[in-house]
């Protein structure tokens, strides 16, 4: 009897408190931002929210179920249209945790809204490299030979087929300028780049001589689905980048440090947890997470200066 009364009182109190709190905001729930201390939100830039919801929801649920001691009781997913919107979400506190590639991670860090916490072995891969390639019978041997030539890249959101190649060219002292198409002649003292939109297109462009060279990552180069063997035989790699982390987990800078610490603990241990097996598989077939060591941290910071002030809106 007493227990029932106390329970009823507690429920009534909760309802009154929450009702009073809502009244204090002067707006119905859903129209004004509401503080959430018990929901962990994972986010990603996506053009297909449904697809990524199915991939991310099991993981955020797995983590949220293990954060009860911190007051986290559930997990949610929120996708952004592009990096600029994700930066806004992180700044406003609408997203707590993001899984992205290096390019986006650097954008978020540079904006001061998120910090990289772990490397993700996305699809079982820890790192990849950008390759520059040309026709087997072409005369390009070094990056310097690209001056006055046309380079094929994928799209502005690509880490290894846009961001990294441009950074490498910059480090070589080469200025890259966009071309409106692959047939447009570049300035003689600069590298002109044109966007192909896909790996197989890039290989075909080089093979057919539409561009003088192209760049994308070694995973796509070694995948016959993206670089057919018949094409690869006719192409030659002339520059290979340093390895880049395949994917990165970030948290918003203003996240409760206890939540951040617990998240890192859980993700690092996930590979050994049988209950996480299917969760990791759904989570872009991740095999494990590992800490970002000093060397990797330095490499990420080195990219911060690469981006111009107008970057940040691309969709990876």
């Amino acid at each position, binding site marked *: 009897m007493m227990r029932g009364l*106390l*329970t009823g*009182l*507690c*429920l009534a*109190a*909760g309802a009154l*408190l*929450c009702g*009073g*709190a*809502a009244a*204090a*905001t002067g707006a119905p*729930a*859903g129209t*004004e*931002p*509401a*503080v*959430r*201390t*018990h*929901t962990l*939100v994972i986010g990603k830039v*996506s053009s297909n*929210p*449904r*697809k990524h*919801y*199915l991939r991310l*929801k*099991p993981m955020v649920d797995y983590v949220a179920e293990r954060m009860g001691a911190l*007051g986290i*009781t559930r997990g*949610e*997913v*929120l*996708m*952004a*249209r592009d990096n600029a919107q994700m930066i806004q979400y992180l*700044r*406003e*506190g*609408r*997203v*707590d945790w993001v899984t992205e590639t290096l390019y986006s991670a650097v954008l978020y860090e540079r904006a001061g809204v998120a910090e990289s916490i772990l490397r993700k072995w996305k699809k079982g891969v820890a790192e990849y490299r950008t390759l520059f390639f040309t026709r087997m019978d072409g005369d390009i041997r070094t990056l310097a030979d690209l001056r006055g030539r046309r380079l094929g890249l994928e799209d502005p959101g690509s880490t290894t087929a846009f961001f990294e190649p441009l950074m490498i060219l910059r480090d070589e002292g080469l200025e890259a300028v966009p071309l409106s198409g692959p047939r447009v002649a570049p300035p003689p003292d600069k590298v002109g780049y044109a966007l192909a939109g896909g790996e197989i*297109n890039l290989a075909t462009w080089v093979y057919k001589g539409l561009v003088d060279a192209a760049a994308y990552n070694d995973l796509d180069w070694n*995948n016959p*689905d*993206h670089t*057919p063997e018949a094409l690869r035989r006719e192409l030659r790699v002339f520059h290979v980048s340093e390895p880049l982390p395949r994917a990165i987990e970030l948290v*918003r800078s*203003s*996240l*409760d*440090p206890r939540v951040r610490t617990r998240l890192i603990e859980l993700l690092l241990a996930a590979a050994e947890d049988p209950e996480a097996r*299917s969760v990791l598989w*759904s989570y872009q*077939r991740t095999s494990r997470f590992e800490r970002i060591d000093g060397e990797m941290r330095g490499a990420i910071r080195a990219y911060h200066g690469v981006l111009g002030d107008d970057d940040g809106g691309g969709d990876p």
Partner: protein
Amino acid sequence: MKRLSPSPWPGLALLAALLFPGIATAGNQQMLQLLSILRDNGTLTEEQYQQLVLAMDEEEPAAAPSAPSSPGITTAPDIQLTTEGGVGVQTMDGRFGMRLKGRVMTDAALVQDAVPNVKKGEVKDQLGSAAELRSVRLGLEGWFYGDWEYQLEVDFAGDDTNVGDAWLGYSGFDRSRIRVGAIKEPFGLEEQTSALNTTFMEPALPGALVPGRNVGIAYDTHGERWSLGLGLFGEGLDDGDDNDVGDEGWGGGFRATYAPIAGARRALHLGLAANYRTYGANPDYEDSRLRLRSRPESHVADTWLLDTDDDLVAVDAATRLGLEAAAVLGSFSLQGEYLQAGVTRGDGQPDLLFDGYYVYASWFLTGESRNYDARHGEFDRIRPLRNFGRGGPGAWEFGLRYSALDLEDEDIEGGVARNFTLGVNWYLNPQLRLMANYIWVDTEPDVFGNDNDPRILQLRAQYDF
């Protein structure tokens, strides 16, 4: 029963919170701690605790979001509007969405060398050239609260309104989904692949042996390279018992697929399916009957050249078996199936076995590859490397198919046929394709010596969104 805590502090704390709203509004953490104490000492059940925490979560007031270690905020998610001809809308949290979809298939057929279709010495009909709307379908698919899904398709072609897929599903399980409604039974590669994505205009002859779409419950699960579908179904899409002649039939089965190779341009598909089905009393004859029949791979040429007609009487059950294989190697692909249906009958009638198979090859002149989906064991939409227009050729595909079906066994003379089909598909873009099939039909003469071996040229314009 857990003993009630004698401590008065929880109640007093709540009272204080009620009397001094400042405590409540200033301290979410304090309130959470209070609720935790109440839960830990048994005053609140875990369920009640969760309800209160959730209520707090949804109703708490705003706070400065950018402060160090600040809590997050939540607002209504944005909406994404998409279109590929139709209209799709979804929330950016991925939990709610819907898509209006549809298709129009317009066919025409030119039939040559056809003779009257004679069954048991009687002329039934004759193949003829014609044009038709093969399919005019509108559909709606969507999802809500993240894990619930639905689909509803209605086809208006011909004189009837036919329901296609119409189901409600739940996908909150690990890589699994359960559905109830009108669903294709899990059987056959060509059957599971949408008609929008098949290489030829109509299914091969053995398509006469698949159980088709029925009302029931289905479970499907998958891995990166395998899929498994199970189902239990009634008979047909209506109640099947409107003439009160007894129970309708039921059926159940499975389909399992495995892809040793599952790349975007290289794939090897293997599949196995089995299905058992009983048949309810036929309202016209008051016994259970099964009719297996096949057009000459042309829907416009609307004549059943192979047909067991009303001869399969007092049928107890049909047991179906399907074997599938397909390979994709760049622009080239092969596909084949063997299907059989064993029929058991009452009244001392002998058991029967009908079977058929097909094999076909496909090749893309323009470099595309058939789009294999290893997680579902079927083929998806073709996306041209360069859409037609502005110098783009679209995608051009050539196919050659050989298929055979034998509906004769013991006392049943349903007929035997073997067809060759040459197909050309022009995919102008992912939503629009033009198709041409030329079919050499070769039926075996029946016991009366009637032989009907027409040639059929048929064309299709297909648009979907």
